[in-house]
């Protein structure tokens, strides 16, 4: 009754119809309050989620890619911050033409092109106008004060070492992703983790408050190469100078520490400037040392000699009859450059006698020879982490080879190898019989090599190789004051119609110092067509030039007893 008293006081004194109306109003008010409770209480999670979808935006903070350095920390590839300009073309569509003209002028894009782009893609809300602009350009664009233009901070890869390292390092694409070379191989390590900013935006995309960092950008890990930039520089320069004098497809140099497989220099010439994409061509971008395979030629007599000693059928002084300077095998002519007569076996290497090598191979047999090839890593991976590595080719043990094939195998034909495989195999002769995986990455720990040759064989072969330089075909590689072991090689290269009589693969492998080699260097000229083509005459002087600088830089003392 009390409640009805209050009701009485409130509206019962009101006229009948007004009271009715008031009840209706109360119902509507209850409906409104109910709806409010529904929207603000029950349904708010959905509504707030919808709001977040419209309001919250995430912004990427690009992480810088890891730096690549040489073994002493010299920068080889660095990421520098740059800006890209992108546009909301819907907004740019309303910009006056004279401003667009100015913008096109700054961006160095033809104005008509920009205008047609805006016409055509006026629905696009994200369009890169230009990637990687200079800071000056950015300032000028900011001065124009055009709405709908935005800048994105990114990183651009820059290679301070320029062309001398480019085939090894490879390239990144515009989005900072590795595309070739070490940039591709070590992409996961070099890649940073992009950070993220969260911000609230109004309808026009302006940030409402200070962006909140969800997680910061983590830069990629640096990569330290085994390359010594100083040696690389001299190597590349020497190749460039040599290539000016001759007509050849390319010149390759690889320098390795034979005691752990670290590559100290790896030069390709011709190369390209990685900082200028116009200079890029697939031919020069290839790291031929790893991706190209050749028939190595006489340089392989080092292996033949090792096989001879391994078979115990020969000693260094076993006499071999090379008369009359040629022989017929399966109807093919095997010929020496000069008539050598009856010579001790070591002279087969020193004089580079094909007839002598053939006779050794016939006596040793294909199994011992091919087995040694395989053990030295020919026809297989070198353990280097590099994209597109070639494995070369070594004949199978079975079926039996024809005589001419076995003969060819003895002086470096009928098989193929990459320059990297060659230097790795000959490292075993340099270091007393151990095979190490080749690497471009600086080793911080001691690596246990795999023994592939007895020490006495490696040492003996090296002694003979020293004589190649001191009095044989490799005389032009001599450096005063240093004992050098080496071997020259000259091979016909294959073109479309079999062996090309006028296209040579000329090489020289050298180890220094000969008694305990610290360095092993292979220099190859491919596609040599004119003039001097003998490995000794072509690659020897380059070896002498590069190595005389190298011993100075690395401080390798000259031999005292010479």
């Amino acid at each position: 009754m009390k409640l009805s008293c209050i009701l009485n006081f409130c509206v019962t004194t009101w006229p009948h119809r007004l009271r009715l109306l008031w009840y209706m109003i109360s119902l509507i008010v209850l409906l409104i309050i109910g709806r409010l409770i529904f929207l603000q209480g029950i349904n708010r999670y959905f509504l707030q989620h919808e709001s977040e979808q419209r309001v919250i935006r995430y912004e990427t903070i690009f992480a810088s890619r890891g730096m690549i350095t040489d073994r002493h920390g010299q920068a080889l590839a660095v990421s520098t911050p740059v800006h890209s300009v992108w546009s909301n073309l819907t907004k740019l569509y309303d910009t006056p033409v004279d401003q667009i003209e100015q913008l096109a002028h700054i961006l160095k894009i033809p104005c008509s092109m920009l205008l047609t782009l805006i016409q055509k893609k006026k629905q696009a809300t994200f369009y890169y106008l230009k990637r990687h602009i200079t800071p000056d350009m950015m300032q000028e664009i900011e001065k124009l004060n055009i709405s709908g233009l935005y800048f994105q901070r990114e990183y651009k890869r820059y290679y301070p070492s320029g062309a001398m390292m480019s085939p090894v390092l490879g390239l990144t694409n515009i989005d900072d992703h590795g595309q070739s070379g070490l940039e591709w191989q070590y992409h996961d390590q070099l890649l940073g983790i992009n950070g993220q900013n969260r911000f609230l935006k109004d309808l026009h995309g302006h940030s409402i408050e200070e962006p909140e960092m969800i997680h910061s950008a983590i830069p990629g890990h640096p990569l330290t190469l085994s390359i010594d930039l100083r040696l690389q520089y001299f190597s590349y320069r020497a190749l460039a100078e040599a290539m000016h004098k001759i007509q050849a497809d390319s010149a390759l140099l690889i320098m390795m520490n034979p005691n752990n497989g670290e590559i100290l220099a790896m030069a390709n010439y011709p190369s390209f400037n990685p900082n200028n994409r116009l200079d890029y061509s697939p031919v020069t971008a290839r790291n031929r040392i790893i991706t190209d395979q050749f028939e190595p030629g006489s340089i392989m007599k080092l292996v033949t000699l090792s096989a001879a000693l391994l078979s115990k059928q020969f000693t260094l002084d076993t006499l071999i009859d090379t008369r009359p300077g040629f022989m017929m095998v399966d109807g093919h002519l095997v010929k020496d450059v000069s008539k050598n007569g009856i010579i001790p076996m070591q002279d087969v290497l020193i004089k580079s006698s094909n007839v002598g090598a053939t006779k050794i191979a016939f006596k040793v047999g294909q199994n011992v020879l091919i087995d040694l090839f395989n053990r030295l890593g020919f026809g297989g991976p070198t353990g280097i982490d590099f994209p597109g590595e070639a494995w070369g080719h070594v004949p199978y043990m079975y079926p039996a080879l024809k005589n001419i094939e076995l003969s060819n195998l003895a002086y470096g034909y009928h098989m193929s190898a990459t320059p990297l495989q060659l230097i790795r195999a000959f490292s075993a002769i340099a270091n007393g019989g151990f095979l190490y995986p080749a690497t471009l990455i600086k080793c911080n720990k001691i690596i246990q090599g795999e023994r592939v040759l007895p020490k006495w064989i490696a040492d003996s072969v090296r002694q003979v190789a020293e004589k190649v330089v001191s009095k044989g075909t490799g005389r032009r590689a001599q450096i005063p004051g240093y004992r050098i072991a080496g071997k020259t090689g000259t091979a016909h290269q294959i073109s479309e119609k079999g062996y090309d009589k006028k296209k040579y693969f000329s090489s020289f492998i050298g180890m220094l110092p000969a008694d305990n080699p610290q360095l092993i260097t292979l220099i190859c000229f491919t596609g040599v067509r004119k003039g001097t083509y003998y490995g000794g005459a072509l690659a020897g002087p380059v070896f002498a030039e590069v190595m005389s600088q190298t011993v100075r830089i690395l401080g390798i003392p000259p031999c005292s007893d010479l």
Partner: protein
Amino acid sequence: MRFQSFFIILLRFFQKDNTCIHSQAISVNTPYDIPLLCNILSLLSLGLLMVFSASTHLSELQYGVSFYYGLKQTVSVFLGLILLCIFIILPLKYIMKWHLYILIGTLLSLICVLLIGHKVNGSSRWLSLGVFNIQPSEFAKLGVMIYLSAYLHKKKETLNTEKASFLIPFLLLIACTILLLLEPDFGSTIVMTGSVIGLLFLVGMPWKYFIWIISSTVIGGILMVLREPYRMTRFIAYLDPWNNPFDSGYQLTQALIAIGRGSWLGEGLGQSIQKLSYLPEAHTDFIFSILAEEFGLLGILLILFLLLRLVYCAFKIGAQCSVKKSHFAACLAYSIALLWLISIFMNIGVNLGLLPTKGLALPFFSYGGSHILASCCMSGLLLRIQYELKTTHLTDIH
């Protein structure tokens, strides 16, 4: 009984407030209803504050300054306060005396706006008066109601016997409706129609007429919706706004998001995100959503209370007048209450997605000079009626 208790709780709330302050010494000394005045003034100031809050972003975009709309609204509110004072001082008998001129003025202004009106968003609702733009439909609603109140006052004896006495109001209503729809101003049309019907209902129009009118207006409304394609799309969008949230349902979904963001206690004054160009008309027709976003359910209930208390006061004053047999004052008070009430319900209904979207201002809150001035006039009239109720001036009209 249980159903009634809902109303009782609701009403007790009103009654308590009313009696508590009312019984204080203030009203003993003065015949003016000070709590009512405070109610009006607090609504005006809250509304001004909300216009400042909701319009800053738009103002910056359009004019480069933050308070363009806010300061314009401040000027309107000051003008409105002057009008309010004038209407408090002006005795009701003069209004009663001038009711025909008021009607003629109203109709003339509505015709003028059609001829020389100034177009915004495809409808010509504004008359340019140099510095100010006037929206005559806002005043027309009041003008028509003043005339109608005077008419019903004159006819009060014969109202229930002479059936033709209901004809004049309907002819007037139809004329105004046509004029308003030509602008077009659908919102004002509904408010005016609703208020006229409501007033006739309150003065005792027979039920059968009433049913007749309701059904015909509903049919008329449906026809109107079907005729104009933009109203049809609005109607469909209202039924399921989330079906097409980026086109036809955009405004409503943004309004609902604003309300949802507000939650129980709101984001805080000035913290609304939806007003940052997301919600179109955030400072005018959809200011309620921004209000909900910034103050939450709690704030909305407070504002709803203030608005409804005003309407309740107007009804109460009307009821007291009708007891005192002052028919004109009663009708006028009812008219004012109905005009406000329907505007409030329509606007909130639209904001909450309970009604299809149409342009209608929320009294005291939306940006716009004319409706603030009209509301101030109505407030002034209400206070005057109350004053004359307390003193004996009302008898002058008889």
